[in-house]
């Protein structure tokens, strides 16, 4: 039995790969190798909706689709990581901040010595 986190990833992969909205039954069929029940698929979809990653339309049966592409999510995250909000370093520990071109040149000189 796969964990919810893994299932969330698997469902998102299917939604990202799909052309349009996907019904829950189709997701269950595509995830058949994991032996997932339809209720589990619904649970995962609800969780993803609460997190703001998935939306559904009003068709019958409901079609589910991803709110943003994987690239958009990665870009959103990197925007936060690269931004320098006051408590950023408390939220996540970044290896090193960015410097401007002049500083970058000085740093390379330090290495070259």
């Amino acid at each position, binding site marked *: 039995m796969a964990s919810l986190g893994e299932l969330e990833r698997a469902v998102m992969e299917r939604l990202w790969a799909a052309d349009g909205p996907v019904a829950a039954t189709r997701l269950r069929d595509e995830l058949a190798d994991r032996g997932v029940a339809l209720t589990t698929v619904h649970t995962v979809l609800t969780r993803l909706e609460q997190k703001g990653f998935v939306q559904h339309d009003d068709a019958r049966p409901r079609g589910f689709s991803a709110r943003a592409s994987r690239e958009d999510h*990665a870009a959103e995250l990197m925007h936060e990581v*690269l931004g320098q909000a006051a408590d950023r370093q408390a939220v996540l*520990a970044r290896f090193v901040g*960015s410097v401007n071109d002049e500083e970058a040149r000085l*740093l390379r000189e330090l290495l070259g010595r």
Partner: protein
Amino acid sequence: MLPATALALAVLAALLAWPVPALLARARWPVRDPLVALVCWQAVGLAGGLSMIGALLVHGLAPWGHSLPEAWWSWVRGEPAADPVRGDHWVTLTLAAVLAFQLVGVLVLSWARIARTRRRHRELLELVVQPGPQADARLLEHPAPVAFCIPGARPLLVLSSGMVAELDEDQLAAVVAHERAHLAEHHHLLLLPFVAWKAALPVLPAAERAHGAVRELVEMRADDVALCSLSGTAPRRTLAEAIVAAAAGSAGGEVPAGALAVSATGVRARVVRLLEPADPLPPAARWSALTGAVLLLLIPTALLLLPAF
């Protein structure tokens, strides 16, 4: 009588609010032993808050007894004061309560806000990252060379594909070792009081200075810990190269210009101490700094708990 105690605490609070942080931030030895310096900063922060609130509390409760515990107990039970209670006693009592609520409240709020942002980042990351080159590191598809970790109950260590492309294997191992050190030593907890202190007392220049110093020291400490676990021929140089590559690689990107200057001096200090290491602090200096930190905490505690002279 308590006035002498209140005065002593007030003097200590004033020293810890400005001259002591200024001296510690300007001192040269912290670079040689970031861990000891971090202990000193924690002591300064804690003793500062303790003496500031303590001075107000002791002055306010002076009419009720000869020691703070005694006066406090008598005040809580609503006993009449032994000496006449003047207006300034009530003012300082109110100030003590406001300051205590402010410091503790901001600490709790900062913690909650940071935890919420972390959870959001973790949710996003769990969807978009893939297994990385190292067992505990994940890979995020992005051209900028970035590495970071999200601390907490379920820590995440993330490398961008740009970072993996930019660095060789040894340098990458150095980056991962640095981030692992942050997680292993819970550096985010050392940083939290200073984030909160800065938010609670924005008028105090020492709060800003302390936060900046602790941020830099935490990075240096993680560098030191990383060096211990690296093999290779010249681990110091490898780590320095990784720092320069990562800092310079994302130059001119989407980073706001205003925030650059501060971090640039920090980056240079890290690279310099890796390439030209200063001698480690002699044991005597190390122990006197640690003793100083312990005394800094003991003095206000003793002043608060012992009967006044």
